[in-house]
């Protein structure tokens, strides 16, 4: 559905995207994750025609995006991270305005708008000017704008970042609903639990480079790595150097009195880890084995990228 090859973007001397390539399958949810400033929003703005790029190729449904920009944009809906509206318009008027731009059928436009307002739960406020809306309400309206006229591809940039926990869950439900309608979704988020819940494929971007693109199931298979979480009486920081030298330990992470140990060989680790911990001469409060989640995988991949 979307194919990106060797995409480069520079802001002056800063290279925001360093020849990134990926593809998104039709009807899937593609999770695009990375730290602030990694290049997520730049990529999205390029793919939605808002930014120019310096080099590379983009194909939407097999057609060159640059050569068929207007036609390609008709297939796309975009929810930016900080949506900006004409604040003097009401949400009804704004949706009507966008509907006319996208060439919605005039006879059905009123019905479409009423349904959209209902879907994002702002019907009650549809006659109020957008300037009086809260950030969460604006985010809901932005989603209504993005899904107007049934786009085939939906770009969502941090869709839940401005929402309260209830709104966030609703947003995720809505994304799953859209997936069932066979809409291809390109989701940028830093809430990794959200990505893990709804995405089929994950792409990690860091410092303008793609460091991993994998299906979520493959990601778990490949990078699944049990973690030993050990809580100590005291700060173990000065005493863990001996652990880091062991070849069956991949890496360690300290968070206060808690030490997380990422291991290479789980079976060997199970036998040996307590022996090594006892050598540290620090009181142990708790000990547990946990399966790594997307956040752990992300931290490891980004951490490795820093070492490159």
């Amino acid at each position, binding site marked *: 559905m979307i194919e990106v090859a060797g995409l480069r973007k520079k802001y002056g001397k800063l290279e925001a995207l360093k020849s990134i390539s990926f593809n998104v399958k039709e009807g899937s949810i593609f999770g695009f994750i990375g730290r602030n400033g990694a290049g997520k*929003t730049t990529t999205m*703005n390029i793919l*939605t*025609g*808002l*930014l*120019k790029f310096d080099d590379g190729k983009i194909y939407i449904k097999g057609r060159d995006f640059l050569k068929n920009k*207007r036609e390609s*944009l*008709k297939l*796309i*809906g*975009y929810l*930016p991270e*900080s*949506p*900006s*509206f*004409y604040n*003097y*318009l009401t949400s009804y*008027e704004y949706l009507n*305005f*966008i509907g*006319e*731009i*996208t*060439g919605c059928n005039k006879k059905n436009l009123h019905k479409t708008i009423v349904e959209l307002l209902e879907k994002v739960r702002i019907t009650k406020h549809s006659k109020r000017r957008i300037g009086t809306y809260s950030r969460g309400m604006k985010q809901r309206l*932005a989603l209504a*704008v993005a899904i*107007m*006229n049934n786009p085939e591809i939906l*770009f969502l940039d941090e869709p839940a970042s401005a929402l309260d926990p209830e709104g966030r869950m609703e947003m995720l439900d809505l994304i799953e609903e859209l997936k069932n309608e066979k809409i291809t979704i390109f989701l940028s988020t830093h809430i990794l639990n959200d990505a893990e819940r709804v995405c089929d494929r994950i792409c990690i971007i860091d410092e303008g480079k793609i460091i991993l693109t994998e299906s979520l199931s493959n990601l778990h298979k490949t990078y699944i790595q049990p973690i030993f979480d050990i809580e100590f009486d005291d700060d173990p920081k000065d005493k863990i150097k001996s652990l880091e030298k062991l070849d069956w330990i991949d890496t360690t992470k300290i968070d206060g009195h808690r030490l997380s140990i990422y291991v290479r060989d789980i079976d060997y680790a199970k036998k040996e880890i307590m022996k090594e911990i006892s050598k540290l001469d620090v009181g142990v409060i708790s000990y547990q084995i946990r399966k790594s989640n997307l956040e752990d995988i992300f931290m490891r991949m980004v951490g490795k990228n820093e070492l490159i």
Partner: protein
Amino acid sequence: MNSFKSYLKKEAIEALRTNKYLILSVGTVFWALLNPLMLKLLPIIMEKYIPAELSEIFSYFTRDTAFQNFLSDLFEMGTLFIAFSLMGLISSEVYGKKLAFPYSRGADPAGIVLAKYIHYAITISILILIAFLTNYFYINSLFSGGILSVEIVLKSALLYIFYYCTFLSILMFFSSIFRRSLIAGISSLVLGYSLSIFNQFKTIRVYFPNYLLYKAADILFVFDSSLIKTIIISFYLIILLIMLTIYRMKKIDIA
């Protein structure tokens, strides 16, 4: 065409709800009303405070000179009001990222630019026409003498309308190249005012749009053949600047 229609409607709602119609009316129609009243009343109000010679000057105003005085004031104040109220026509939309949704839904930059230009060109034209007729009504009521007629007033109004359509295209072009609205407004004002200097040079003044204003005040010969060159140049300038604005809006980074 979809973008043009939807932006035309949006511009009308915006102008109404953000009081742009009101501001533009103050800058044009209000002066048309105030100018003759002030000319008539000022010497009476200030009788005790201004020298007798100056007071006498006011009494020499005929309908023609009162009209010319209005034209001069309208150029100074009207241009100021138009520049400052419309300076963000494009820059505030780009800078405020208001175009992200329309552009990502395939809006046509040409439709947006044309809708904005045509909406405000029509608005300004109507307001100038109202201002000139209002001014004529008050001048006829308060002053006597001179050859001023409705025909002359309408001819002058037409030249002012054409000048402000040219000025609007300059303002819109500057608004598309500068991200800060204020810079666009000030640049347009400086250019608009400074071009009037050329009206003092007989051989070259016909090549500048401000000659339209000079002829509008030439009550005896408002329309003559010397205007042909100015009208053609101004017309081409409008087309060129609108095309450049559209080109700029096609190339600009919206996000």
